[in-house]
């Protein structure tokens, strides 16, 4: 905008100057007022930091996803109860977009322009969030930890304020593909894919290693709960290993369909879909004794980048349970809530790194600088740097057994495209004793 000032001054000096001055004095006072300048940053006061997010709380995408912000809020409440970050309490506002991009655009406008949030944290969904990508970046609002594994969030040149968080679907697909290729070289692989970028990127990653092992790929559209035709097609193609890039409810539905079809392949669900606690509880209630809950998922292979609620004695899960018991609302701790808490944890780390007087640009710079070294609940490190805004670098492969998981591989890390897959040797030190990170400010 600065480049116009000169011309405007000329204009104002011209014949219409009087009119402009009058109009200016009439409307100027009531106008937008522009951005607060000086030392005080938008959304930050001496004792609060205000951040926002958009989630589907109504409509068809609400089941499951609407849990995430309740987890995030519980963790922020926990941090606030322990004094906040640098003496500032985190005010977290989440608004409903019903998974509709038009609504997302509206509520994010509201968050940024009306509520004046400092940053957007954890906004969910590829399509909804793409609608606000331009807006957030042109306004210079940090857009951290988008709750989606799309590759869109890693474009630091075009979208310098946007960061991914979870391992993207392509990276996960690559690690899964190589694992299957090495350990089950004779498997005839059928792909069960959600019909969006989740399925597409996962398929791309998996096919990079499985090329000629894939015998069929079937896609389902969210909302159509009858997946028996898709499963029947996988069965007909002779797939003896089904690799699912699908959400948890569709794990339950695909299991039910395969019961009906008497189809018993080896199941391999990517991280999103495995959620044994949720799927198990869904399945166990269907039929008295007929389907015995989690045991139906016994032997299912999956990947992990966070310990889930089924691993009750993992130190991170113990922390999340403690947080949820103290600050959660109704309902139990679920993996969705746990996901929300883990994102909140990373945000607290980032805010600490940005120092005692955080600015929007400072927050982004701090994350680029120390993001790759942050130690948190994630099993693999983040890929954050000046050139990369991609989230976690990898996953480990594990097998569900009863109410826990059995490790099948170490944590593998890689990057998009042709990057090699390597073993990650770092160890997760577990949460700090008080459950709150302490990251040094970036100098």
């Amino acid at each position: 905008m600065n480049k116009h000032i000169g011309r405007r001054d000329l204009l104002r000096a011209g014949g219409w100057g009087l009119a402009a001055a009058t109009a200016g004095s009439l409307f100027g006072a009531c106008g937008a007022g522009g951005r607060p300048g000086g030392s005080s940053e938008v959304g930050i006061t001496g004792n609060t930091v205000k951040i926002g997010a958009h989630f589907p709380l109504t409509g068809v995408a609400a089941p499951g996803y609407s849990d995430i912000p309740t987890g995030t809020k519980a963790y922020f409440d926990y941090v606030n109860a322990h004094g906040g970050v640098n003496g500032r309490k985190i005010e977290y506002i989440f608004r409903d977009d019903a998974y509709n991009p038009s609504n997302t655009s509206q509520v994010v406008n509201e968050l940024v322009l009306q509520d004046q949030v400092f940053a957007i944290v954890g906004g969910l969904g590829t399509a909804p969030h793409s609608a606000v990508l331009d807006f957030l970046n042109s306004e210079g609002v940090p857009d951290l930890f988008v709750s989606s594994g799309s590759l869109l969030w890693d474009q630091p040149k075009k979208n310098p304020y946007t960061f991914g968080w979870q391992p993207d679907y392509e990276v996960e697909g690559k690690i899964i593909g190589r694992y299957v290729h090495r350990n089950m070289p004779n498997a005839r692989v059928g792909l069960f894919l959600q019909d969006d970028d989740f399925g597409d990127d996962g398929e791309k990653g998996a096919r990079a290693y499985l090329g000629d092992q894939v015998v069929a790929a079937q896609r389902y559209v969210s909302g159509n709960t009858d997946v028996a035709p898709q499963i029947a097609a996988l069965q007909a193609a002779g797939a003896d290993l089904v690799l699912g890039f699908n959400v948890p409810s569709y794990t339950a539905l695909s299991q039910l369909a395969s019961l009906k079809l008497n189809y018993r392949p080896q199941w391999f669900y990517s991280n999103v879909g495995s959620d044994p606690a949720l799927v198990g509880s869904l399945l166990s209630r269907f039929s008295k004794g007929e389907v015995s809950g989690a045991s139906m998922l016994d032997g299912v292979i999956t990947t992990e980048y966070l310990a889930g609620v089924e691993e009750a004695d993992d130190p991170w899960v113990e922390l999340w349970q403690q947080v949820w018991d103290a600050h959660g609302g109704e309902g139990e701790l679920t993996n969705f809530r746990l996901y929300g808490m883990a994102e909140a944890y990373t945000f607290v780390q980032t805010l600490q790194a940005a120092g005692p007087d955080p600015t929007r640009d400072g927050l982004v710079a701090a994350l680029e600088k120390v993001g790759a070294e942050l130690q948190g609940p994630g099993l693999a490190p983040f890929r954050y740097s000046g050139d990369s805004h991609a989230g976690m670098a990898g996953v480990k492969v594990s097998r569900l057994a009863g109410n826990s998981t059995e490790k099948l591989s170490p944590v593998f890390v890689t990057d998009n495209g042709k990057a090699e897959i390597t073993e990650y040797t770092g160890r997760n030190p577990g949460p700090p004793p008080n459950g709150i990170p302490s990251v040094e400010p970036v100098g």
Partner: protein
Amino acid sequence: MVAPTAVPRGAATTMSEPLIEGIAGRNRRTMQQFLNVALNGLSQGAIYAAFALALVLIWRSTRIINFAQGSMGMFTTYIALALIESGRSYWVGFAVALLAGLLLGALVERLVIRRVEGGPELNAVIVTLGLFVALQALAAILFGATYRSFPAPFGLHGFDVGGVNIALTPFNLFAIGAVVVVMLALVALFRFTDVGLRMRASAFNQEVSRLLGVPVGRMLTLGWALAAMVGSLSGLLIAGGSLVFPAYMDAVIVYGFVAAVLGGLDSPVGAVVGGLVMGMTLSVVSGYLGSELVALAALAILVTVLLVRPRGLFSRTAVRQV
């Protein structure tokens, strides 16, 4: 884990024994797939049929399409779920849901529909759409917007007959049986009972019916109550052994409507046949063309029927304005 008859990939040069077996196996699997998809369509179709029956019943008694039917069925299914989760048996929940449907139907007719009956047909459409939206939001507030599993009283495994899989579960058979029973009961009601005759008369011409001593108001209420009960049944049948969430009936509204129109909107038999045709067609479309095209296929069927044979396949009415 890996099937022993798997076709060797790569440079298989000669027509070896396993390869021939592989081809035969592939043909067998292709046939099996078609059978599975068709039978799956049959069980889905039974559900659409149940929903279409509810629409037909209301159409026959008040000449209104109840777009709130899905939400009403969803709501009563949640009542059943609450009972079952509190430890009652499936059948207690089942019976209470049907009774709740009966009551809800009567209430909706007396409190809301009565005031738009006989008025511009658009007003009735808008009112039922309003009920549809409101009930769905109310259910989300009361019961939560998460996925819940709804139990089934029978098994969920398909049958295996001599190595051929029959993709019907005992619960599917129960659903199909229930739909056939309801259809027969409705046919009997309309054809053989006085009440049925009065209901038809009230819908056909209110003034004449009143002159002949038919308690028209009560007949209309009864029609809605019965229809809502059938709607609740369809809600329970869709939910059984699957996931429920406040919007789980949305697609069924459209598919059930198309099924009812296909059958002629005032024929119970037509509704069931229409439902089964819809179920099979949509299952085949989903299995062979892609699940994103299912809703479009429903639209195509509807438009074709309305343009080619607007009276539907089974309607007896000589002239029908659509």
